[in-house]
């Protein structure tokens, strides 16, 4: 049986001597280098099953090393674990957003590290065992080949596989079986809306994995129809977009909005406008499909019910935020705390505002800095998207409903 190979890149090799010995005694083949450049060179020849690298490496740092390894076809599938002495949430989030497979703080616990290796390697084995159909694939940028063209290529070749599309922090999946699109996921969107949203993405990258696909069909349409509709969808989207301010421009309600009558769709769009809205937000938040929502928004824009925020106003808002206080200033910090305590006596505006019992805990958290909810503003804070969470939920619920869950007659759960 092939020995699993592990490549470790750390600035001071002695620091991981114990780990190295433990890995060797577990039967792994381990190579250790002390800089990023050597790690990159060795990685191509050694082709490790797992790569462990410190962030602070000489020559090429851990982040760059990760990018280099992931950018090369021969090494892009090697699981990458980052090791860092920094404990800041920002550093972690940054690394996670880059797509590292795991992130471990130094000093680490040897047993935990061994366990993490073991889990990753078992996962690879299992994945390889189940995905025997995986043979090849290709990748590229959307600017060179858009989503419709990728679908078309697979459709013509009657291929089965998954198209993984990345745009900013979002990742969408399109599943094809024998050249037919059978399902798609993107955040909480249902299959058809997910595909059409991805069709309008002009920037980002895609990766195609040719493999056997077993999941059930979620699309009623033939792929030819999807491609045809997609082309029309994209053309109309572009036409509308050209007649509007940039989709990322801040907008607000127009001055004469109160004197106008609106239908239900228009009211829905208008109700989504808040202080920080952009046109794209309205489209994405709408219950209608993206094109319909953009059409409605365009109509509202033409009627003056929505207007672009003047640059001056945007600057002022930005400035007021920037000048809202320096966290290092003790006076400002005390004011924040006093404001916070006063706010607590007001009724909660929504479920999120009344989150925690006890002022002490709230203040402590504010003093300590970032909260999990703050991380939501960071891109891709959660690895799984909403549809995947719903699938997990459904699977767990199914087991209960089908009686696989055992007795549930005591009614203990609230």
């Amino acid at each position, binding site marked *: 049986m092939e020995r699993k190979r592990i490549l470790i890149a750390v600035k001071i090799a002695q620091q991981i001597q114990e780990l190295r010995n433990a890995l060797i005694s577990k039967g792994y083949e381990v190579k250790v280098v002390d800089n990023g450049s050597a790690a990159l060179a060795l990685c191509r020849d050694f082709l490790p099953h797992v790569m462990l690298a410190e962030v602070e490496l000489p020559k090429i740092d851990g982040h760059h090393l990760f990018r280099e390894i992931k950018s090369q076809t021969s090494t892009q599938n090697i699981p990458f674990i980052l090791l860092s002495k920094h404990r800041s*949430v920002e550093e*972690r*989030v940054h690394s*996670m957003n880059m797509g*590292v497979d795991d*992130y471990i*703080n130094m000093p*680490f*616990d040897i*047993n*935990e590290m061994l*366990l993490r290796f*073991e*889990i990753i390697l*078992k*996962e690879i084995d299992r*994945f390889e065992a*189940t995905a025997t159909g995986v043979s090849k694939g290709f990748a590229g940028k959307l600017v060179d080949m858009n989503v419709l063209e990728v679908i078309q290529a697979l459709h013509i070749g009657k291929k089965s596989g998954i198209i993984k599309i990345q745009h900013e922090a979002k990742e969408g999946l399109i599943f094809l079986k024998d050249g037919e699109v059978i399902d798609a996921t993107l955040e*909480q969107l249902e299959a058809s809306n997910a595909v059409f949203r991805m069709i309008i993405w002009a920037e980002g990258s895609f990766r195609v994995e040719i493999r056997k*696909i*077993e*999941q059930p069909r979620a699309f009623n349409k033939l792929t030819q129809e999807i491609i045809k509709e997609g082309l029309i969808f994209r053309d109309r989207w572009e036409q509308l977009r050209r007649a509007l301010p940039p989709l990322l421009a801040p907008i607000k309600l127009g001055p004469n909005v109160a004197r106008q009558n609106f239908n239900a769709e228009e009211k829905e769009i208008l109700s989504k406008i808040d202080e920080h809205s952009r046109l794209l937000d309205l489209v994405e938040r709408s219950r209608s499909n993206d094109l319909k929502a953009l059409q409605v928004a365009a109509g509202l824009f033409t009627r003056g019910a929505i207007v672009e925020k003047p640059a001056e106003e945007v600057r002022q808002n930005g400035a007021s935020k920037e000048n809202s206080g320096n966290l290092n200033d003790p006076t400002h910090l005390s004011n924040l705390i006093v404001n916070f305590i006063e706010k607590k006596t007001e009724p909660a505006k929504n*479920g999120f505002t*009344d*989150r*925690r*019992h006890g002022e002490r*805990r709230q203040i*402590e*958290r504010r003093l*300590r800095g*970032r*909260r*999990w*909810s703050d991380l*939501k503003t960071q891109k891709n*804070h*959660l*690895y*799984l998207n*909403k549809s*995947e*969470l*719903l*699938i*997990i*939920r459904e*699977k*767990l*619920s199914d*087991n*209960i409903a089908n009686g696989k*869950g*055992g*007795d*549930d007659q*005591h009614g*203990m*759960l*609230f």
Partner: protein
Amino acid sequence: MRIGEIAIFSPGLETNRKFVEAVCDEVVLETESLVFGRVQINNQLVLHLYGLKLSDNQPNPSWDLVSKKLLGYVVLFNWNQNESLVAVKPFVDALTARYDIPLIVVATLQNGQHSIPEQIVNVDFGLAKQNQFTFCKLSDPASIKKVLISLIDQVISDYQ
């Protein structure tokens, strides 16, 4: 392959094992401080459960992280053992004081009976509204699955 992870903490490994075994298709790995199990959701999606034993000195901080795949925490204690509650309370305090990570505190019961309102325990822990307190019966997989569903609901609510 897409993976979601849930960390389950309790003072006793046996409790963790029962919890993980009740839900997982297979218990992949078991050591003196960890039970690791996997639930295959579909071809593309897997749920990993890490049953971790709480030590006197708090768990290894590396587990207490905003992990890429970590959905949230389940903290278990034995309703009938005061020392079990005492053991988990500082851990829950430490977790809730740091982040709003989805968390569910679970009192395990042997016979499924209890008479104390959840609010009393909830106040004692100082839990946020979304960090639920609940009871469950370790011998009943449905009850355990409901705990996980509640946790997933918390995560989903963060998307609203």
